[in-house]
């Protein structure tokens, strides 16, 4: 009995070790602060999108809950942080950020009981319905939220009273990146814990998971709550760095785009959302430069093609690529090729 537990612990510990590839990825991520000084705006959006995608990955990739309503948490926390800053309730951005995350997580906890009932279609409808309801509410109480014009007059105080959100977005980007990193480390802890392992077993086969004594319902409730909190932090980041919040934070397009981001990067592994966000943002930027009005067409085409090719097959390519990289890495020494690969993904 005890040895079995030790085995699991050993397995988890081995998996949880930071690989050189990961370290290189984060070194490169932080190096972008100095590498691309003129691109802070898009980099910042990418970091927020990556955090948002990470939250969806937790419930979709690891727990298997299909959701079209992650925007509900994003939007709620966005408005929350905007309102507390506007009315001077919580002036310190970091505390406001944490509070916004907690508020979103609370909403996630309450709605999780609705979402965990029924089939995939019911889940889709309920998650979508919740975010649309919030959108309608924000529209209804336009005297508080600003309605269709968006929430204006938000002034964000300097972080820790020292780092002001400057015009070039330098501090804003660093702030987003640091928050993303902290959230990522937390998500990583969750995934490589026995709790994370139990989530994967639930996704694999719910019936068997409950047969070996995993409390399926409560595991799903907790991961849904955590993911909602992450989504909320992403939403609050957007409001804080732009000092603005509008009704489209609740829109269906936002949730649908998020699914696309995650699919591009790959579900069920932590870097999927991050890499997906980078690729998506650059793709969007590039296409929008070519055809400003019709970039949605190409995004749709990408989705259709990805499904027709098959996500499994694409995941297979990535695995092969990683195996090749690992072999190269073993031949050339551990660090340098991994750095190179992270670099190509960054561009």
């Amino acid at each position, binding site marked *: 009995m005890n040895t079995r537990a030790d085995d699991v612990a050993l397995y988890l510990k081995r998996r949880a070790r930071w690989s050189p590839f990961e370290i290189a990825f984060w070194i490169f991520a932080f190096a972008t602060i100095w590498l691309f000084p003129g691109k802070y705006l898009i980099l910042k959006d990418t970091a927020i999108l990556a955090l948002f995608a990470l939250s969806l990955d937790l419930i979709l990739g690891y727990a298997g809950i*299909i959701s079209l309503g992650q925007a509900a948490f994003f939007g709620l926390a966005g408005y929350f942080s905007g309102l507390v800053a506007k009315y001077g309730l919580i002036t310190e951005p970091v505390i406001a950020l944490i509070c916004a995350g907690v508020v979103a997580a609370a909403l996630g906890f309450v709605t999780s009981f609705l979402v965990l009932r029924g089939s995939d279609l019911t889940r*889709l*409808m309920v998650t979508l319905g919740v975010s649309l309801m919030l959108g*309608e509410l924000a*529209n209804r109480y336009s005297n508080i939220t600003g309605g269709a014009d968006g929430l204006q007059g938000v002034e964000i105080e300097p972080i820790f009273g020292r780092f002001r959100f400057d015009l070039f977005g330098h501090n804003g980007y660093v702030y987003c990146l640091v928050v993303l990193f902290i959230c990522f480390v937390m998500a990583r802890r969750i995934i490589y814990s026995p709790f994370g392992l139990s989530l994967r077993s639930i996704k694999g086969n719910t019936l068997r998971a409950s047969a070996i004594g995993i409390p399926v319902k409560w595991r799903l409730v907790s991961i849904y709550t955590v993911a909602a909190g992450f989504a909320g932090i992403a939403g609050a980041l957007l409001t804080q760095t732009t000092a603005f919040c509008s009704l489209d934070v609740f829109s269906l397009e936002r949730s649908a785009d998020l699914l696309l981001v995650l699919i591009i990067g790959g579900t069920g592994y932590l870097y999927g959302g991050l890499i997906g966000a980078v690729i998506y943002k650059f793709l969007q930027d590039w296409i929008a430069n070519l055809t400003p*009005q*019709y970039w949605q067409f190409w995004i749709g085409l990408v*989705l*259709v093609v990805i*499904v027709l090719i098959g996500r499994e097959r694409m995941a297979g390519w990535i695995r092969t690529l990683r195996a090749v990289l690992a072999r190269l890495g073993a031949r050339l020494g551990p660090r340098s090729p991994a750095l190179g690969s992270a670099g190509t993904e960054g561009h």
Partner: protein
Amino acid sequence: MLTILYDGIAYGMLLFVLACGLSVTLGLMNFINLAHGAFAMAGGYCTVILVNRLGIPFALGLPIAFLVTALLGGIFERTLYVHVYARSHLDQVLFTIGLVFMSVAAVDYTMGSSQQFVQIPEALQGQFEVAGIGMGKYRLLIIVICGLLTVALQLILAKTRFGSRLRAAVDDQRVARGLGINVGAVFGITFAFGSGLAGLGGALGAEILGLDPTFPLKYMIYFLIVVTVGGTSSITGPFFASILLGIGDVAGKYYVPKLGAFVIYAIMIVVLIWRPQGLFARGAAR
């Protein structure tokens, strides 16, 4: 008050014609088709082109819109959708959302982003009074057409050989296959027919629902509400669901204009929590 009821019924009938194809495809293949609204939009734009630009009479434009959309649906089903049936629900959602995005941008590109209006013949405009209730002539036409369609659909499902095959396939696909029913063909025909109905609904509804490139996104949620609330195992379920939704939506927009949609979503969530299989579903639905 009665005018609201009347408008609501017309609206609900329209929703039913738009969504019944979706309910069959969902029930039959367990396939989540978010792109159903795109076919409705295709029908609407088809009528706009035919009636406004080519000058074809409105009465002739409607059946042509039906045929064109049915053909379009059939082609898409055979070439694209076929590959996605066996996939997970996530894949289906992604695939059909991708199609929606593409259709939105494509229509925006070809027809412009402004709202389109179908020129309705003079005889159908205006309204007349019956017992003090103002009834729009065009809405009456919608109710008549959609009512006839509903009866016809019910008869096809209940009385014809094709209908019994379809019901058998919906109830248990594997056994139906075992009995020698070509489920794929049944599904292809039903899909094309359902798309055609959506196209007809889009053509009829261009006047009431409005027609612009974001149509599939705007009304996707309504179709899905009809299907999930009504259940997928019969057409009476979606029929009552859409009538309820139509009346509720019109009444909500009239009495609490700013909270209208909120009420609809709230009711939907309550119904889904209370009866996840839909209000009118039989016990053993999927």
